[in-house]
């Protein structure tokens, strides 16, 4: 009985905190959005290879984050948004199979609207990697997360992260179209 009462009190406190601090929520969130939206958008671009879709993914991630903002710890807000973003991306690929159009050969010049030829080639090559492996690569190497952190963000095992990572790197090296070294090869 006392435990139930304590739980109800805690819930009420949380609810009051959540619902009663709208102004502070907006201020803090606005600051976070201003500082991190572009970072999230670039992460989304690394995942999907399309700036308009990246914009949409990042926006949706921030909308979801806003709804849960009172419960998000500031020091983990980046990870929170990145997790939402990655899962949104994977969900979108699961829902719309075949939305991506792999090309047989990587073009010599990037197709990202002229925003950096060399980097576009890398992003185009990334698009040849299957979505889940691509997500692992982005988290592991673009964001420099550990295997454990990657597994936590993707909600899978560390063994799965290792195997997806190895296969993803292999596919990426092949798709990148020029000889590159690899840590695993060295």
């Amino acid at each position, binding site marked *: 009985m006392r435990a139930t009462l304590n739980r109800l009190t805690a819930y009420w406190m949380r609810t009051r905190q959540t*619902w009663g601090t709208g102004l502070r929520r*907006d201020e803090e*969130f*606005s600051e976070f*959005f*201003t500082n991190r*939206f*572009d*970072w999230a*958008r*670039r*992460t989304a*671009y*690394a995942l999907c290879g399309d*700036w308009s879709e990246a*914009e949409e993914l*990042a*926006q949706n991630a*921030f*909308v*979801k*984050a*806003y*709804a849960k*903002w009172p419960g998000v710890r500031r020091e983990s807000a980046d990870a929170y948004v990145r997790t939402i973003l990655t899962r949104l991306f994977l969900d979108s690929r699961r829902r719309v199979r075949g939305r991506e159009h792999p090309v047989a050969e990587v073009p010599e010049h990037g197709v*990202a*609207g*002229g*925003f*950096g030829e060399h*980097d*576009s080639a*890398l*992003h185009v090559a*990334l698009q040849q990697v299957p979505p889940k492996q691509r997500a692992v*690569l*982005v988290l592991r*190497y*673009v964001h*420099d997360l550990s295997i454990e952190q990657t597994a936590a963000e993707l909600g899978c095992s560390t063994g799965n992260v290792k195997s997806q990572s190895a296969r993803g*790197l292999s596919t*990426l*090296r092949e798709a*990148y179209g020029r000889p*590159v*070294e*690899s*840590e695993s090869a*060295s």
Partner: protein
Amino acid sequence: MRIEDELRGALDVAAPPPVTRLEDVLARGRRRVAVRRARIAGSALAVVAVVVAGVIAWPSGSRGVLDPVNWARATPAPEVVADPPRNSRLCREQTIPSLVLSLEGEVLAEEQMSKWRDLTQEAVSDRRVTSEDLRGLANEVPRVFKVDIGDTDSVRFSRTRSDDRPSVAADRALWATGACTPPRRWTNADGTVFQLYDATQTGQALYVFRADGRALRMEQLNVAGSLGRLPVKEWQFVRLGAAVAEVL
């Protein structure tokens, strides 16, 4: 250059200017919060509604399966001959014949009658329950025990024994009270059959057939004869019958 190093610089690419405005995100986020709150409120209301509906549908949560309000009427097996049979002539002439109140059965012991009286007192805790002096009554080799409730009400008990299965014994007693409508019946998980006859202005009968062949016959009576003024409500009557049947 290693491919991993290439990846580490993947965010540092030339990008078009973002088109998403903070105001748009805040507006969508607030709508999402509002929808979530509405869902929570809706869920809470649904839970309250279910609880309220449950309380209304089952005003006394302790009645349990012994509430006869939803019991089905008995449908006797054709091969069982009822004793006594249905009084077709009487039923043609009178839709609700008077209850036949004639209890007979085995001789009752003093200790048994004492328990039944106590159980009756528990069932009507707000009224005074009396009976004849039990020791004197026991000397008279009683087959029916009557407990008076207040000035005008009483409950009578007797017990019998049958070699038939409870359902067959219940079928035989289908028209025992002289009623024209089949009684309501419910079978307990342990095989005990409860058979509740419709109330008349002056009384109501309940027969309980245990799986071991013992049977309880019980009647509640209102001498004043006003319908709806029987000593206890049906579900209380059935509960009392279940308690008494346990100490037959």
